[in-house]
C-alpha cells in the first residue's frame, strides 16, 4: 500500500509494435456480502471482501486475447482508493502487462461524469508515450450499475463507441478497421468501425483465463504506477470528485413495507397439496377474472 509514487510509466517500456490496449477496471465490494445496518441504513463495509468488477474481467480477457493474437500490450487502469492496487495486482496476475492506479482524495465522491473525466485524463496522459488503439471497459459495474462511464470516456477522447459487444469478429491492423457484434434490441448489429475505439464488453462473451504461475509470481512483485490527480494530468480539480459531479445524492433510504401487509396462507399441518389449493383459492379470490382467463387458455 505504501508504494512510492513513481513518476511516469517506467515498467516495462512500451512495445514499439502491436496494439496499445487499455482496460479500465473498478474495484467493487463483493455484492453478495454487503449488509445494511438495520437501524442507521448505512452500508456495513467492514470486512466485506473486494473483487474486480466481474463485468470488467470479460473486457480484460478480450484485450489479452487480441494482444496474444496481434501483439502489443495490455495496461489496466483503475481509479479508486489506495487499496484498489489489489484489484490491479489481480489483473496483472491474470496476464495484464502493466497497471496504473489513479488515486487522490480529490476524486472522492465522483459521479459518472467526473469519473469519465478522471479516467479520460489519465488515458490521455498514457497516450502521450504512444497512441492508444483500443480502450476496453466492462458493460457496467455491479455496484453502480450505470453503464455510463464507458460512453463518457469514448466521448471525451473522441473514440468510436462500441457498447454491448458480444464478439470481435475481425481486426485489420493495416487498415485499422474492426468488426464487432453489438447486442441491440431484438438482435445483434454487425458493425465495422475503426481504431481508435472504445469497446464495452458484454458478460459471458468469452471465458476468462486463469492466470499462469509466471503471471501470478510477476504480479506480486510488479510495480504498479500510482498517480495523483495532478500526475494523471488533471489541470482543473473542479472537474473531479464531488465538485465535478453534476448529480447530487440527497437521500439514501430503505423502502417501507407495503401499507397493507401480506395475507398469509395458513393450513393445518404442512400438507403441500392443501397449501397449494389454499394459495389458488386466495389468488382467484383476489383476481376472479384470472380463473376465467386461465381456464379459457387451458381448454
Amino acid at each position, binding site marked *: 500500500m505504501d508504494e512510492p509514487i513513481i513518476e511516469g510509466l517506467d515498467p516495462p517500456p512500451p512495445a514499439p509494435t502491436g496494439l496499445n490496449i487499455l482496460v479500465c477496471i473498478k474495484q467493487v465490494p463483493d455484492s453478495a456480502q454487503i449488509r445494511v445496518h438495520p437501524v442507521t441504513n448505512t452500508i456495513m463495509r467492514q470486512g466485506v471482501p473486494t473483487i474486480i468488477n466481474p463485468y470488467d474481467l470479460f473486457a480484460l480477457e478480450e484485450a489479452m486475447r487480441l494482444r496474444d493474437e496481434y501483439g502489443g500490450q495490455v495496461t489496466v487502469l483503475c481509479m479508486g482508493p489506495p487499496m484498489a492496487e489489489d484489484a490491479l495486482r489481480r489483473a496483472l496476475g491474470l496476464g495484464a502487462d502493466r497497471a496504473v492506479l489513479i488515486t487522490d482524495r480529490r476524486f472522492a465522491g465522483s459521479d459518472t461524469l467526473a469519473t469519465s473525466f478522471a479516467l479520460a485524463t489519465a488515458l490521455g496522459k498514457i497516450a502521450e508515450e504512444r497512441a492508444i488503439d483500443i480502450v476496453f471497459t466492462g458493460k457496467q459495474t455491479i455496484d453502480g*450499475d450505470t453503464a455510463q462511464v464507458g460512453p463518457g470516456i469514448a466521448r471525451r477522447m473522441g473514440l468510436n463507441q462500441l457498447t454491448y459487444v458480444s464478439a470481435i469478429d475481425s481486426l485489420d491492423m493495416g487498415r485499422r478497421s474492426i468488426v464487432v457484434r453489438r447486442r441491440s434490441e431484438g438482435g445483434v448489429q454487425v458493425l465495422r468501425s475503426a481504431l481508435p475505439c472504445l469497446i464495452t464488453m458484454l458478460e459471458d462473451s468469452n471465458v476468462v483465463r486463469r492466470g499462469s504461475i509466471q503471471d501470478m509470481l510477476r504480479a506480486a512483485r510488479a510495480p504498479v504506477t500510482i498517480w495523483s490527480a495532478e500526475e494523471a494530468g488533471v489541470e482543473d480539480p473542479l472537474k473531479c470528485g464531488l465538485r465535478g459531479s453534476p448529480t447530487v445524492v440527497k437521500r439514501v433510504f430503505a423502502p417501507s413495507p407495503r401499507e397493507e401487509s401480506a395475507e398469509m396462507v395458513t393450513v393445518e399441518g404442512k400438507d403441500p397439496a392443501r397449501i397449494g389449493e389454499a394459495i389458488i383459492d386466495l389468488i382467484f379470490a383476489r383476481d376472479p377474472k384470472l380463473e376465467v382467463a386461465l381456464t379459457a387458455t387451458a381448454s
Partner: protein
Amino acid sequence: MTEPAKPAAAGRASMKKELPERFKDYKNVWVVVEIERGRVHPVSWELMGEGRKLADRLGVQLCAVVLGPKAASTKAAVKQTYHYGADVCYICEDAALTDYRNAPYTEILTDLVNKHKPEILLLGATPLGRDLAGSVATTLGTGLTADSTELRIDDDNSLAATRPTFGGTLLCTIYTLNFRPQMATVRPRVFAMPEADTTRAGRMVWESLRMKEEDIVTKILEFVADNTSSEANLAYADIVVAGGMGLQNEANFRHVKRLAQVLGGDYGCSRPVVQKGWLPAERQIGQTGNTIRPRLYIAAGISGAIQHRVGVEGADLIVAINTDPDAKIFEFAHLGVVADALTVLPALSDAFARRLRAPALAS
C-alpha cells in the same frame, strides 16, 4: 417510501439551490422515442405516460423526439407520440439515422437540446438508450441518472430520480441541481403503458442532421435477428414464476418452469441465481435484469432484496413462498406462504393443472 436516512454528501459544493443564469430558460419535458427497424420500443410510450404527468405538474409541454429514416414507419411514430401525450414532436428524418449508431444520434440529439433547451430529458434504459444517454450527457456536461425506478417533481420544480444503490441494497434519490437538462434513463416496464388517445394531435418541428454518411466511421454490415426474444417475453409476460436461492440448485428450477408452463406464463430468477450460473442473465428479474408488471407473480425461495423488489413492484398480485417468516419479500407481497418452495411448487403446479383441466369441479 420511508424517510429516515442519513443525508448523503452534505455540504457538497453543488448543493447550492440557485440555477445558473444560462439554464433558466430550459423548459419542457422530453422523451426520446426509440425506433429500431421501424418498430417503436414500448418503453418510449411508458416514458411518455410518465413524462405527461411530470409536464403537467410543472405546467410545461411534453415533447417527443423521433429520429429515423424518411419512411412511413417514422411518420407513424410521430402520430403516435401525440396519442401518447406529446404536445410537440421534434423529428429528424435522414437515411443516416436508419439504424441506431452512436455518432449521428448523439449529434442530432445534442443539437436539438442545445437549440430547444428542455429541462428534463428521458430515455429508455435499453442498449440504445443507455448508449445514447451516456454520450449526450457527457457532451452536454450534465447529470444523468441510470435506471431510475421513480421520477418525481420536487417542491422547487427539480427532478428527483430514485434508483437502487450500493448493488441494490438501498434506494437513493438523485438530483441534477445546477445543470440542464436533467437526464434519466428508465427500464422497460417500470412505468405502466398509458392509454392511447387517438384523437390527440400536436405540433411537428423538423430538424436536419448536420453529419453526412461519409463522416460516420461506423457502418452497419448486417443485423442478425434473435430467434426468440426471450427477454422481451419475460418483461411483458402476464404471468411470471421465479425462483431464488431457496431452490438450492439448478436442477430444481424444473419446478419453476413447470408451474410457468401450466399457467401459460414465463419464468425467471433472482440475481444470485444468475451469479451462480444456474440460469442465463436474460432470465434475471430485478433492477439490473428484467422489470416485470405481470397480472400474477409467484416468487419462490426469493428473499426480496431491494434490487429485486423494484423490478416486481408493478405486478398486480405478488405471491411469495419462503421458509423464512422474516424474509423481506413478505413486506411487499400480497399473499405469503411460509413453506419450502421445493414442496409447494410441485403441489401448486398439480393443483393448478387439476383445476384448469376441470373447471367445473373447482368451484
